[in-house]
């Protein structure tokens, strides 16, 4: 079992005919994911992947025709904001935006709109989600994880793969892995994903992978200490990263000194999270 996506998810790909979109749609289909439709304005009526996936001009029409309930977005950054609004407007309840480079103010408008509609967004600038053995929405390589009872949530891409791979080498399986993205304004955050893992009867352990910047990890730590009964192992990347250069006073006034790796590690450790020193240590910490 899993969170967010499973073998019954009906997935639609926005930007299906692009270079990246097509490659990863093929990977998703080969993994056994139910990809029911693609959208590329102007290419409606075509089929991709040897007639396996129909292409539509609009997301609304695609949803009406196929009953798609998850969208994965690969369109270029300057069109992604509109693509997210389009998916939400078409009634899709869960959107993964893989594209990187979306302006922050666009994302603030997207967030406000989606909250009002009750639509979930994962990303942008994220690898998506993988429920091993069932489905994948996004670009996480399918062959680096096996099914199991560990939930993984991360702000990174390749660092997440590193952790999945380390778990697989020890024969440890994953319920679902979600990459929430590292941008300043994102859709679902650590807390929302942790809540889903806590409620998922098939997840027994959780791995949280954070990095420097922002205060999402600190907030996650507070949530864990109050609401999580399942054991959590964490890792924070960026312990040796130099502090960023900052202009003006506004950032210093609202963020006041938080966001370093040391702060985040302390916050997690104080909430009972076992914090790994490096990613390959995570499987051993889960065993103990």
């Amino acid at each position, binding site marked *: 079992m899993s969170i967010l996506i499973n073998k019954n998810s009906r997935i639609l790909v926005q930007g299906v005919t692009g270079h990246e979109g097509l490659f990863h749609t093929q990977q998703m289909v080969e993994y056994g994911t139910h990809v029911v439709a693609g959208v590329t304005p102007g290419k409606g009526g075509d089929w991709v992947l040897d007639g396996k996936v129909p292409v539509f001009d609009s997301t609304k029409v695609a949803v009406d025709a196929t009953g798609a309930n998850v969208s994965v977005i690969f369109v270029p950054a300057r069109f992604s904001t509109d693509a997210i609004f389009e998916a939400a407007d078409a009634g899709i309840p869960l959107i993964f935006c893989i594209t990187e480079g979306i302006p922050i*103010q666009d994302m603030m408008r997207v967030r406000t709109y989606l909250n009002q509609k009750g639509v979930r967004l994962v990303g942008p600038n994220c690898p998506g989600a993988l429920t091993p053995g069932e489905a994948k929405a996004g670009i996480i390589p399918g062959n680096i994880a096996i099914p199991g009872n560990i939930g993984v949530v991360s702000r*990174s891409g390749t660092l997440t793969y*590193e952790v999945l*791979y380390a778990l697989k080498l020890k024969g440890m399986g994953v319920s679902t892995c979600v990459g929430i993205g590292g941008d300043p304004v994102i859709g679902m955050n650590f807390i929302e994903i942790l809540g889903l893992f806590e409620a998922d009867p098939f997840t027994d352990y959780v791995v949280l992978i954070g990095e420097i910047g922002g*205060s999402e990890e600190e907030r996650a730590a507070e949530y864990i200490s109050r609401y999580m009964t399942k054991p959590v192992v964490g890792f924070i990347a960026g312990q*040796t990263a130099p502090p960023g250069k900052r202009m003006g*006073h506004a*950032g210093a006034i609202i963020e006041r000194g938080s966001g370093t790796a040391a702060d985040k590690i302390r916050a997690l450790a104080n909430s009972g999270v076992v914090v790994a020193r490096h990613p390959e240590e995570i499987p051993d910490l889960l065993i103990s």
Partner: protein
Amino acid sequence: MNLHEYQSKQIFSKYGIPIPRGRVAANSSEAKQIAEELSGRVVVKSQVLVGGRGKAGGIRLAKSAEQAEELATLILGMEIKGLPVRKVLIDEAVGIDKEIYLSITNDRSTRQPIMMASGEGGVEIEEVALRAPEKIIKVLIDPLLGLREFQSRDIAVSMDLPKEYWRPFIQIAEGLWRVYSENDATLVEINPLVITKDKRLLALDGKMSIDENGLFRHSEIAEKRDLDVEAPPEIEARKYGLSYIKLDGEIGCMVNGAGLAMATMDIIKLSGGSPANFLDIGGGAGADKVAAALRIILSDGNVRAVLINIFGGITRCDEVARGILSAISEVQPKVPMVVRLVGTNAEGGRHLLANANLITAETLVEAAQKSVAVVREVTP
């Protein structure tokens, strides 16, 4: 990307925010001429993208055009926090009754724009925020609705701004909101916004930071980029879509993905070494990107070994391996290289590299330990 004071204030002015009369000068005779036009009493302000210009002596008052010329000569010869002063802003000097702080930035925790204001503006504003946080007024702005007039009025009231200034203050706040929202800014800041002795509101200083991801729709702003604030390798890296930051250590790193790049640096430290740089080659790294990355890493004379750590997802390891081979033949590195390839087409990649004189590793820990070990061998 950060804008200079004079660039920010020019933009503010277009949105109806009053700024002092003045112009920017690149040499002392221009400075003198501008000061003459402004009839003598002016402020000579260094234009460099660092904080603390005033404390460094980069902002000085001149009582005459001649003195403005002298000060411009002095300031244009300065370096402030390592940055050369290439331009000075010559602004009319004004009498000041009160200093206000006003800014809009992105509040990450609520994912909304936030306007902040204080009746105790000026260079000590961060002190005020620490000592008396209640004196910083914070108002969240709905990104779909924009700043509403009542919000600006509430700020004016909360700052105890005399009633006759409410109207001009509201106009400035609205102007600042438009500067922020129409230019993809991540920060717009007026510190100080002053009440002059002749009872005007005036933006004496201005700062703007622009979201790099939003620059595609603001080509006129993108042209204003000041390359002085970036080291040449960082500029070179951006050309190839790489992200590079130089550090002080001796092990050069080439990694795909920012999180993994940071984790690789951390593990080098944990193994007793120290990273020479952060370098993320991004997704889908082809041969030319890898070659550029290697050149940039080796341009740092402190580098004693290079660690290449690639986890193939979108990026295919065989493609990276080809890039490494062509980079080696082009750059002829004289330092040992440790390579770890995992994931998509890793087998093929490792096969391609078998005959190159490289140290290989299976795990991240092994790769870090081997790089630290070779550095110890080459530096007795």
